[in-house]
């Protein structure tokens, strides 16, 4: 089993190496065969591992297989250190592996259609395979060291893919921004690892993550807060969220895979993985819950007025990730992971649907130039509707169950502890649910209902031909009657994700309808007390109260969107300062630019130009060079080239030696 699971890691790596080295020389179909094959085999192996894990007794489901010893030092006596790379397989990592490789495979398939006309076809799939490799490494590493390696590599994959269209200035800038912010997170993880090593004398999960924790609470809190810095950067939580909306510069399948379904959930995974530490640090848990709640509301409010369809989805992702952290902050780890899984399904679907729309409109992302696509793109529209219903929390779709799980956990924890802060968080959760329903249906109506607001009618066939020549990503809009449904290679993944979005919820807790025991995913995760026994059994009353209010909230949001945008989206310039404030994303980017980036750049320029470059560095290096030149100018006169001079100096040397010995006696 261990060898088999190692290949989950190796297949995508092999795919990346083959495509990276040979991709440019082989046919597109061969590129696809390698890329799909690598990802598909990894998924197959993950499935096999999953079933073999189901077949093992509950107490033996955690396996920590050492693959190789990377570094061994010290002998048997005294302190010694062995660093080994191993795979840590347990229900949590298997769940993550299934999501990563499964959703990854669907997106690999979809990308074949989306990237069809791109000249760097092979490079794209090489990067995708590399990402799958890095993500598998992240979720299956058995120590903080290799977790960090995977953590940094997914950041690199994200950087490469955001900047995939490197000819665009904005894409390069976005890639840099994402990388810099991710490195802040890597740094947090690194510091946390140092602290862990100092206190636990090991980085292996099996040594660190076990009860009882023997380290004092203050240190644990510091470790957890540093870990959460890493999580916040990777999962785009306040205040490190800014990179994710900009990451939408990448190709849309990338947004779906990395910036919605998998990589950004690494933070949620890390908190669940290290929950034993978090359980001992109530302060850190409160921070996680608080940041999660604040982010959920903040991002949802920005999403309300965005006009770029991918940005709406990006802010929605940030908001949903906030939900997951809220759940984890009240120790509802399995609820958080459950929402992670369902969110991967419907958010990937939303992004792929948006990608299909963008593809059909030849690069148009502005909602103001869409509308009326319902009758032109039936499959996309239906699947998009399912995803919208799912994320809005309309029963019985996936999002309803997982969001409800989170909200009822929050409410149950609030009533149990009587902590007013938790009631506030629960309220935020409800409000955000309503906002989510509103902005998602605004998006849906904006794209699919009403009249087409792009170029409605073809004036002449000739112009159409010119547009064909102009290529894929031109600025002009497409004539309504030329809009076509995407090819099957793209629509089949949409349909499969739609099916998952419908049935995905039944993986989770169905305690609502009295089937308390029917909770496959939480039971799977909670086996071997991996995520701890549920902190509390939410009573049926609480679950019903929470559910009823959340449905009500979602319906309110939906109704508002229905009333405003049912006949199609319309955009009206507004001078309302509050509206402008939210539309411009609270001017966070501008404030950062003004308050942080400009001063640092300015300081760098001043120090660089006037101080270092001009006088200190230049004159310093020139001075040293000049000194040596001066010395050598003097000394090299000795080297005359006349044989007789050399002979004379030899003679004088001999005479000196002779005289010396003669005098000394």
């Amino acid at each position, binding site marked *: 089993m261990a060898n088999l699971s190692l290949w989950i890691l190796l297949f995508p790596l092999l795919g990346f190496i083959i495509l990276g080295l040979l991709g440019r020389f082989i046919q597109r179909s061969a590129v696809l065969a390698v890329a799909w094959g690598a990802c598909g085999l990894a998924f197959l192996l993950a499935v096999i591992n999953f079933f073999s894990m189901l077949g093992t007794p509950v107490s033996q489901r955690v396996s920590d297989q050492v693959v190789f010893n990377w570094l061994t030092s010290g002998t048997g006596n005294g302190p010694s250190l062995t660093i080994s790379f191993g795979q840590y397989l347990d229900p949590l990592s298997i769940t993550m592996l299934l999501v990563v490789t499964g959703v990854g495979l669907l997106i690999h398939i979809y990308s074949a259609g989306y990237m069809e006309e791109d000249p760097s076809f092979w490079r794209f799939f090489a990067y995708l395979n590399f990402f799958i490799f890095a993500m598998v490494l992240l979720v299956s590493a058995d120590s903080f060291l290799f977790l960090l390696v995977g953590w940094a590599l997914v950041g690199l994959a994200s950087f490469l893919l955001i900047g995939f269209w490197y000819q665009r200035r904005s894409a390069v800038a976005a890639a840099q921004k994402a990388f810099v912010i991710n490195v802040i997170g890597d740094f947090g993880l690194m510091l946390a690892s140092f602290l862990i090593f100092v206190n636990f004398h090991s980085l292996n999960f099996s040594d660190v993550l076990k009860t009882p924790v023997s380290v004092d609470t203050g240190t644990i809190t510091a470790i957890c807060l540093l870990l959460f810095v890493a999580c916040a950067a990777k999962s785009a939580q306040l205040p490190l969220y800014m990179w994710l909306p900009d990451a939408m510069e990448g190709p849309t399948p990338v947004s779906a895979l990395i910036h919605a379904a998998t990589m950004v959930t690494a933070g949620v995974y890390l908190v669940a993985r290290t929950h034993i530490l978090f359980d001992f640090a109530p302060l850190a848990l409160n921070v996680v819950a608080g940041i999660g709640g604040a982010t959920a509301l903040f991002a949802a409010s920005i999403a309300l007025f965005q006009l770029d369809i991918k940005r709406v989805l990006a802010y929605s992702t940030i908001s949903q990730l906030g939900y997951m952290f809220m759940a984890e902050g009240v120790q509802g780890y399995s609820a958080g992971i459950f929402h992670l899984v369902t969110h991967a399904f419907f958010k990937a679907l939303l992004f792929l649907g948006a990608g299909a729309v963008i593809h059909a409109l030849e690069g148009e992302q502005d909602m103001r130039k869409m509308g009326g696509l319902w009758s032109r793109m039936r499959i996309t529209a239906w699947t998009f509707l399912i995803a919208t219903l799912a994320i809005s929390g309309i029963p019985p779709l996936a999002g309803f169950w997982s969001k409800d799980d989170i909200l009822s956990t929050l409410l149950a924890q609030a009533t149990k502890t009587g902590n007013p802060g938790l009631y506030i968080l629960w309220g935020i959760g409800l409000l955000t649910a309503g906002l989510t329903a509103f902005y998602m249906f605004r998006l849906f109506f904006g794209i699919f209902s009403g009249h087409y607001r792009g170029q409605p009618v073809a004036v002449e066939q000739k112009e159409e031909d010119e547009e064909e020549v102009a290529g894929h990503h031109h600025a002009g809009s497409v004539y309504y009657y030329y809009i076509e449904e995407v090819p099957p290679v793209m629509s089949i993944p949409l349909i499969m994700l739609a099916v998952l979005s419908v049935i995905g919820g039944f993986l989770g807790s169905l305690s609502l309808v009295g089937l308390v025991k029917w909770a496959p995913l939480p039971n799977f995760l909670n086996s071997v007390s991996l995520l701890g026994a549920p902190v509390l059994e939410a009573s049926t009353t609480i679950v019903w109260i929470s559910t009823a209010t959340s449905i009500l909230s979602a319906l309110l949001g939906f109704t508002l969107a229905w009333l405003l945008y049912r006949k199609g989206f319309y955009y009206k310039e507004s001078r309302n300062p509050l509206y402008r404030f939210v539309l411009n994303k609270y001017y966070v980017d501008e404030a950062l630019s003004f308050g942080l980036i400009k001063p640092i750049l300015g300081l760098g320029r001043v120090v660089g130009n006037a101080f270092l470059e001009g006088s200190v560095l230049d004159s310093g290096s020139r001075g040293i060079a000049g000194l040596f030149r001066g010395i050598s100018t003097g000394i090299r006169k000795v080297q*005359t*080239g*006349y044989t007789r001079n050399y*002979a*004379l100096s030899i*003679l004088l040397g001999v005479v000196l030696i002779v005289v010396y010995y003669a005098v000394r006696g």
Partner: protein
Amino acid sequence: MASVPLSAYLIISAILFTIGATGVLIRRNPLIIFMSIELMLNAVNLSFVALSHFLDSADGQMFVFIVLTVAAAEVVVGLALIVSIFRSRRNIDVDEMNLLRG
């Protein structure tokens, strides 16, 4: 037979060596320089032989043969170099050969 003292041999040897060294330093014709080098070598040979005789040891005479052999080989290489330089430069003044100056 009145024997010649050792000091006489060594003085002659020193004088010959000094003449040879002076020749190497002041003459500009490489052929003369070679001859001066021979003179230096033979001055050494003379002291070797003299000391060998006075010390009743054959070691010094053995060294003389080695020095003679080396001197012959050195002259072969040196003359070849001089011929080669003369062919390329039409001139063998050692003061003109200063390409290796710093």
